[in-house]
């Protein structure tokens, strides 16, 4: 089953609507550094991260070329493949810059993706919550024990 998941819950509904209306097969919202905010269509979190890293790399290198040319920030890039198209957009939200990486097939078009991307950006701006105060502590003081166990199991060895 295809699922939509969000690390930042306020992005979930706007992304769901976008996917349904634009007919996207895969969609990713990330920070400019490639951290995943929300995704649709990927089955494994680690695959999402690879796509996010590549999307952020494309965005970063394009932004750098723009900077060299004294051009303002790029808004969108598209790649028309044989079976799939790829669309990468760069936009601002009240919670900072975001990237959207969208993969669409024959059931959609670049025109539709572009059109509903405008709605997505608007809906994200409206849905963004005021930055809430975060709990003061993240990790317990003895997190090293968990870390050691995790790394040991990861590498299949004793510490």
């Amino acid at each position: 089953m295809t699922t939509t998941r969000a690390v930042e819950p306020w992005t979930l509904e706007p992304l769901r609507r976008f996917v349904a209306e634009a007919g996207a097969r895969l969609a990713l919202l990330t920070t400019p550094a490639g951290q995943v905010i929300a995704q649709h269509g990927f089955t494994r979190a680690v695959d999402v991260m690879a796509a996010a890293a590549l999307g952020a790399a494309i965005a970063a290198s394009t932004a750098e070329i723009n900077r060299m040319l004294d051009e303002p920030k790029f808004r969108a890039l598209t790649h028309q493949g044989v079976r799939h198209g790829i669309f990468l957009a760069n936009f601002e939200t009240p919670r900072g810059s975001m990237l959207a990486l969208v993969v669409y097939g024959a059931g959609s078009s670049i025109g539709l993706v572009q059109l509903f991307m405008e709605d997505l950006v608007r809906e994200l701006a409206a849905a963004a919550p005021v930055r809430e105060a975060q709990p003061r502590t993240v990790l317990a003081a003895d997190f090293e024990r968990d870390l050691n166990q995790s790394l040991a199991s990861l590498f299949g060895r004793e510490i």
Partner: protein
Amino acid sequence: MRAGLRAALDSITRIRGVHGAVLVAADDGLIVAEALMEGVRGNAVAALAASLYQRFLRATEAAGVQRPEFLHLQASQGSLLVVPAPSGVLIVAVAAADINVGLARLEMIRAAEAFA
């Protein structure tokens, strides 16, 4: 805008009741050329009309009657007309409810032939 595209759009928009016309790339839903009244969202009309056309194309092909040659979508306050040109461009017109559909269709087919 290239003269040929402008002429094609002019031939449609001069019909009484036509509010505007757009040439749209059928595969990607992007505007090739447009002559629209203010307030009509050209990119939305282009993307959605192309999407509609692609769906109807699938339906007519599935029915074994080949590709659609004319779409007339009558809305409560006007019409959307679509004619595909052989070059992969769609000619889309936004019109009033009382439009002379026959005349508009004829002009749109002529414009499409000009693209062949």
